[in-house]
């Protein structure tokens, strides 16, 4: 990078000033924290460090989730928990009322079960494709390619967009009168009903979420790849290993810890799929892309169906399954270590 000397000098001065300020702020805060440390000792300090986070987390994240239990066991349209009549497990009974759990149309709350199966299908395919694309991109960007920074930025950029914008952009491209169908008819092909065909819609919802978030996982994987020492590859190629062998014997095993992080994060996000799809297909066609969070949102907040109890019960069921999954994953990782 060519920076003019003047700018460079100015930047250096600014950086020096900022780092001086940082040191000043740290020293001032050290007066407080140092005093605290003298009062409660080193062993008490970790509590001080987690305290601010724990307070905010407890009040604004944990407490609402606990309140959800109150909603789940009460009924009515009232919003204040203590005005709501106790209904026991009625909300859960409604959700679980099925003659055949594998066939949503036999269930009282058929939409819930459709959402459950849609979500499961989405999670499996989306996570697989997400990891695949992120890995391929990271592997390619890990090569000594010119303009690597540019390509990395290009692949990362969609991560910065809000879900609503992502959905908006792709709707203008994929809708019946959108750009892609315009190109297709221009080339003499038939229009493709991207948004009204259930299979197309389910597939595109997955591809769009891969488009939107892949850059994030790619960066994590790239970081993992770059932490693999280069001399391992040199040694392997001296021993006559080919590309595939060095990939399967060196890259994959050493990348495994990073892969697990990526897998867990993308799994969590996949289960939470909501805003992009909500703005992109609205759950349609029919209920082909109705996922759990949207189901819960529809009953929990959208005004005509205000059935907070049902929504809370559904979210507890969902949360319960996810927590079990997390615990299993933590246990498995502990065993591995």
């Amino acid at each position, binding site marked *: 990078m060519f920076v003019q000397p003047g700018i460079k000098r100015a930047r250096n001065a600014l*950086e020096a000033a*900022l*780092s001086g*300020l*940082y*040191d000043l*702020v740290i020293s001032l805060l050290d007066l407080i924290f140092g005093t605290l440390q003298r009062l409660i000792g080193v062993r008490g300090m970790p509590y001080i460090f987690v305290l601010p986070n724990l307070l905010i987390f407890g009040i604004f994240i944990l407490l609402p989730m606990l309140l959800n239990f109150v909603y789940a066991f009460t*009924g*009515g*349209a*009232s*919003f*204040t928990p203590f005005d709501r*009549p106790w*209904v026991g497990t009625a909300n859960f009974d409604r959700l679980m009322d099925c003659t055949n759990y594998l066939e949503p*149309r036999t269930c*009282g709350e*058929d939409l819930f079960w459709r959402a459950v199966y849609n979500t499961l299908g989405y999670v499996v395919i989306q996570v697989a494709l997400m990891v695949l694309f992120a890995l391929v991109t990271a592997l390619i960007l890990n090569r000594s390619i010119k303009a690597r920074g540019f390509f990395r930025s290009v692949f990362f950029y969609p991560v910065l967009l809000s879900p609503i914008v992502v*959905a908006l952009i792709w*709707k203008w491209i994929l*809708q*019946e*009168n959108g750009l892609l169908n315009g190109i297709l008819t221009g080339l003499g092909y038939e229009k493709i*009903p991207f*948004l*009204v065909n*259930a299979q197309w819609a389910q597939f595109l919802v997955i591809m769009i979420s891969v488009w939107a978030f892949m850059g994030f996982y790619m960066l994590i994987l790239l970081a993992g790849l770059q932490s693999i020492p280069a001399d391992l590859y040199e040694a392997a190629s001296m021993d006559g290993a080919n590309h595939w062998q060095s990939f399967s014997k060196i890259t994959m095993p050493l990348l495994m810890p990073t892969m697990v992080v990526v897998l867990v994060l993308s799994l969590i996000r996949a289960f939470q799929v909501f805003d992009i799809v909500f*703005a*992109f*297909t*609205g*759950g*349609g*066609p*029919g*209920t*082909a892309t109705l996922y759990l969070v949207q189901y819960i949102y529809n009953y929990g*907040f*959208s*005004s*005509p*169906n*205000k*059935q907070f*109890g*049902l929504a809370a019960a559904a979210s507890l069921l969902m949360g319960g399954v996810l927590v079990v999954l997390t615990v299993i994953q933590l246990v498995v990782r502990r065993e591995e270590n």
Partner: protein
Amino acid sequence: MKISKLFTALLLVAVLLSACKTAATEAPTTVPPTQPPAPVATDVPAPTDVPVQPVEIRFTYYADGVEADVIKPLIDKFMADNPGITVILDVVPYKTIDEQLPVQVDSGEGPDMARITNFGAYAGKLLDLRSYLADSAYYEANFPAPILSALGYGGYPDALTVTGPFVNKTLFDQAGVEIPGEGTTWEEWTALAKQVAEATGVQYAISIDRTGHRFAGPAMSMGATLINAESNFTVDTPGFRSFAEIVKGWHDNALTPQEVWLGAEPVNSCIAAFKSGQLVMCMSGSWQINGLAKDVGDAFDWVVVPNPTGAGGSTGIAGGSAVVAFAGTQHPQEVAKLIAFLIQAENYAAFSAGTSSLPAHTGVAEAGVAFNTDNPMVLAALSAYTAEVPKLTDQAVSLNVHPYAFAYYRNSANRIAQYLSGELTLDEMLVNLQQDIDNAIAEAQK
């Protein structure tokens, strides 16, 4: 140590910002700069209706088009006439009105006034204006009684809408087909629109907005008794079935842009397809007139035709929005004053004219509104819709003011879409829809 610099830079900016922020937000509460100094009136005996304390009214508003731009000058005029009252118009997304406002009002955090569409959602939470309005008789005499009683006399309808089909007249002319008048059935319209689409090479013949609101008019015209005498919903009626089958036929025979019912928006309109000139007939409503005039321009001629006729008559569905006052307001006198101002014939007519909407105010409607346009298509469409108003059946009127109308609107859109996409049979769809509506009502009454 770059991170430390970044960190410090952020810290520095944040400290500065929060300092400014406190200054910026707290200053107005102590010395409101927009407020004319109240004590000026002290040497002259203050008129009794001018409050001594400056009063702030929060008015939560949403706009489909230019409504906010039209009401702002009216509110400015009101504030000029009433120096003690400041009205703040909060223009919010419709989503806020639909989802957030009921919860806010429930928790006592609501505004003083709002523009709403779900007339039944605030039962018992609106301010009974009759005891606050200086001329309550005028208020009660000039608005349709069913709407006022649905609102609990807590507001007034600021615009009336009615559903009805738009037709692309240019395509009919090109196909050499005469546009039929009153008394045509939906089957006949379907056949005609198909004929025109084929003759002109246009992709789609006929469509209807994705909501139970638009769907109800044709269904009732075909004989559906959606709301019975006890004002309960019954969806499984022959008329409802017939119209559902007609719409299904449109989808199966590729007569209709499928994205309207199977695509994204919760309320999807066929008007976008109609505007592109690729659709012969679109069943929507009077609120589309402005957008059509603007977006179609000179591309083709469009007209509003009477609602098709069937066993149940020929009815659209009424709709519209209302300006309401909440019972929780601290300033009922001032809120009532603003409403009294807005419902004065002159001001109400100015709003109708500016937004090209049908007046729900009888006095204004009788006097006629001088709409701000010389576009003959717009004027013709407005009078065509005006002619639809007296044709509304009792059932169609009561649907609009039914306390659970929205439970029917939204659920039916989703369930009918499931039927159209082939996920549910007609019978399953009707059973599920009935269940959804019953559940929503049962839960609300617990």
